[in-house]
């Protein structure tokens, strides 16, 4: 206070009326400054991407979970839906129930633009758009029904790029690994960490699975066996691919640099190795590298199929200590690894049935350039384990996830399509509703990354694809 008064005194000192002159100088300066006024209806400001203009609805992403409506402080979201019973996916299965959105309306006369609904939506069905010119003469017109809300989707911008050094959404190294190891049900992006873990696992896997791989066992048995051996990391990828194509894959993998040590061991090991080599050949994704670098210890602990959880715990603990982690961190990571291992044992068997190896998927026509074929079509369902070995090319993350898509439902179609047209097969793949949502997620993610999309965009699109796959709908965004 005293300081302020002294300052005021100082300011008053120079002389009577000088302050007035200073003020006049300020306004005069403004008279000659360049005017920055934007003449609104004629010129429009380029609003930032996060502008809260209007809320757009991506209808096909909406699962009628009602979270938005419940969280809305103004209760301005109206949702009506009914349940629909769908035929069982498989013969003898249970009929599935699905929510069908009948009405989704936002009353913008009530809305206070808090954005909670957008935040809370777990399926990315609500987005902010920058449009704001939707004033109406009639207040009732301000209630936008789902058609209108869907129309706003066209105006939604992709999210702005993350800031320098920002934590990647959903995939910081640790959590990504955890998610990858936690199993197919996880919503994280498991592809890259999964590969890491696969690499880590090699010795153990090799030890456990030679019989499974070498023997041309019945497909189911083989699949489940390899499933277990590979852990849930690549539940179907390794299992599905290896059975009929053992020698070929061996040969194919043979010419990759990292594959040599594993030549003599089982196909499962090779398979994961192929994956590894493929992923190594695409080092341009920073995220991947990051995950690779940071996730190893956890990954190693996380998903060793046959390992006892307690053993995993001990091993990870030791690793962490070796790395110089603090005791608390080491212990925590070891515990995480143990939990993951436990879950892995339980869940490893579950996805097996879906991983029936393909009897004879035509593989010869596969284009042989891998990452450059990052185009969605090229990395479609080709990597399906055919008689021909999956070469290292398709052992990209995409390919790996593709392998998971070798679900029974898809197979007939695959066979039916011309072997010479991979695109046909590829385009068929996303439409087949039997594709596992998680696999779709990984595939789309890999595709987006290959296309060079930013991480945020890639994740967003992958999520959307997963949701579409879950709902069995096909979105406009592809």
């Amino acid at each position: 206070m005293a300081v302020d008064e002294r300052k005021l005194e100082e300011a008053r000192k120079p002389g009577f009326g000088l302050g007035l002159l200073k003020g006049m100088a300020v306004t005069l300066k403004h008279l000659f400054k360049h005017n920055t006024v934007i003449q609104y209806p004629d010129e429009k400001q380029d609003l930032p991407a996060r502008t809260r203009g209007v809320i757009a609805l991506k209808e096909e992403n909406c699962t009628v979970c009602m979270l938005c409506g419940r969280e809305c402080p103004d209760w301005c979201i109206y949702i009506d839906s009914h349940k629909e019973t769908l035929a069982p996916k498989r013969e003898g299965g249970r009929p599935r129930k699905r929510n069908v959105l009948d009405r989704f309306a936002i009353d913008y006369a009530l809305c206070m633009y808090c954005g909670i609904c957008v935040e809370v939506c777990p399926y990315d069905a609500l987005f902010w758009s920058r449009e704001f010119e939707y004033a109406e003469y009639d207040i009732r017109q301000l209630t936008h029904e789902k058609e209108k809300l869907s129309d706003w989707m066209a105006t939604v911008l992709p999210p702005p790029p993350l800031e320098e050094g920002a934590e990647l959404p959903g995939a910081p190294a640790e959590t990504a690994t955890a998610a990858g190891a936690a199993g197919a049900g996880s919503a994280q992006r498991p592809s890259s960490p999964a590969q890491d873990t696969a690499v880590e696992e090699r010795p153990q896997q090799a030890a456990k699975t030679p019989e499974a791989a070498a023997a041309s066992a019945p497909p189911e048995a083989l699949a489940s066996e390899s499933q277990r051996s590979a852990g849930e990391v690549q539940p179907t990828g390794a299992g599905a691919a290896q059975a009929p194509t053992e020698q070929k894959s061996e040969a194919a993998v043979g010419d990759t640099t990292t594959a040599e040590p594993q030549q003599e061991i089982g196909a499962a090991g090779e398979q994961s190795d192929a994956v590894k080599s493929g992923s190594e050949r695409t080092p341009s994704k920073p995220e991947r590298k990051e995950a690779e670098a940071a996730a190893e210890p956890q990954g190693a602990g996380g998903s060793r199929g046959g390992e006892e959880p307690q053993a995993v715990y001990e091993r990870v603990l030791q690793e962490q200590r070796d790395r110089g982690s603090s005791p608390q961190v080491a212990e925590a990571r070891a515990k995480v690894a143990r939990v993951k291992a436990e879950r892995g044992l339980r869940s490893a068997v579950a996805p097996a049935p879906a991983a029936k190896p393909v009897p004879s998927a035509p593989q010869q026509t596969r284009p042989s350039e891998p990452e450059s074929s990052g185009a969605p079509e090229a990395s479609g369902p080709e990597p399906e384990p055919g008689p021909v070995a999956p070469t290292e090319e398709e052992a990209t993350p995409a390919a790996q996830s593709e392998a998971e898509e070798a679900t029974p439902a898809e197979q007939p179609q695959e066979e039916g399509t011309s072997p010479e047209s991979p695109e046909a097969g590829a385009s068929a793949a996303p439409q087949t509703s039997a594709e596992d949502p998680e696999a779709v997620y990984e595939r789309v993610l890999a595709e987006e990354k290959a296309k060079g999309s930013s991480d945020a965009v890639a994740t967003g699109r992958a999520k959307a694809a997963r949701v579409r796959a879950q709902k069995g709908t096909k979105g406009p965004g592809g």
Partner: protein
Amino acid sequence: MPEIALTAWQILIVKVLVILMVVPMGAIVGGYAEHKVMAHLQHRLGPMYPGGFHGWATTLADGIKFLYKEDIIPDAADKRVFSLAPAAIMVPIIMIYLVIPMDESLVIEDLDVGIFYLLAISSVSTIGVLMAGWSSANKYALIGALRSAAQLIAYELPVVLSAAAVAMLAGSLSLVDIVRAQDWMFILWPPGLGLALFLVFVTGAIAEMTRVPFDMPIAESEIITGPFTEYTGMRYIFSHMFAEMGHLIAFGGIGATLFLGGFQPIVPWEPLEVIPGIVWFLLKTFFMIFLFLWIRPTFPRVREDQLQKFAWKFLIPLSLVLILLTGAWVLYV
């Protein structure tokens, strides 16, 4: 060029028409200038649409709008006084223009007592303001009118005293003679003293015009345009808009005449004599008007008691001192 012979009556009609044109046209142009200058001083654009080019027709459209507005006289109002007040405000303002010399010979009436007439007539419009405020039967209007009268009494003195000092310097009450006496503008010579007189004059003039920062009588945020609260349509234009702009231009002209050398060049230098006197006069008037417009968006409104204190405790003693100094200058320099 043939001589155009006009009878005295014809000349009178022309003069009256000219004067009657000056105020509304000045109000339209000045109003637009005020909009734009104020806007740019505040880093805005001001009106941009009416008329197409930078909103040149804004004030014209305003005027037409006011023409079509309903003329309302409140029930409780003293109707005759209420309707006469705008005329009582406007006529003295128009009459100020009678004596302002725009060029050596371009003056409607070169009165011998020009400056005396000027100061007398410029205060008369306050009677109209009082009439308006009193007859409106409205508390805000009454408060505004009384404030206006009090302000006029307080600030008329500095204006009169500084104008008297100018008359002393020029040795004449005729405005044309005062201009002729300014080989060097009075604002420059006598040094310092002239500038001080000018500042006193400007301060007093702003207060007399009830412009910001001395616009307490018509403070829209507390007494809703004061005496003009109840006025609508054309009466409002005449009593407030035209009066304000007419006052502004008149005081611009008076300031230019008394302190800036009127139709004389800014410095006594031969080549500058080529430029006609009316150009000099208009340039100086525009400068004065710009000064008034410049002050308006710069300063906040002064409180009523501060306003009175400033006049009685500072400005009037100061102008008395300046009169003394001027007398000394005239006697001994």
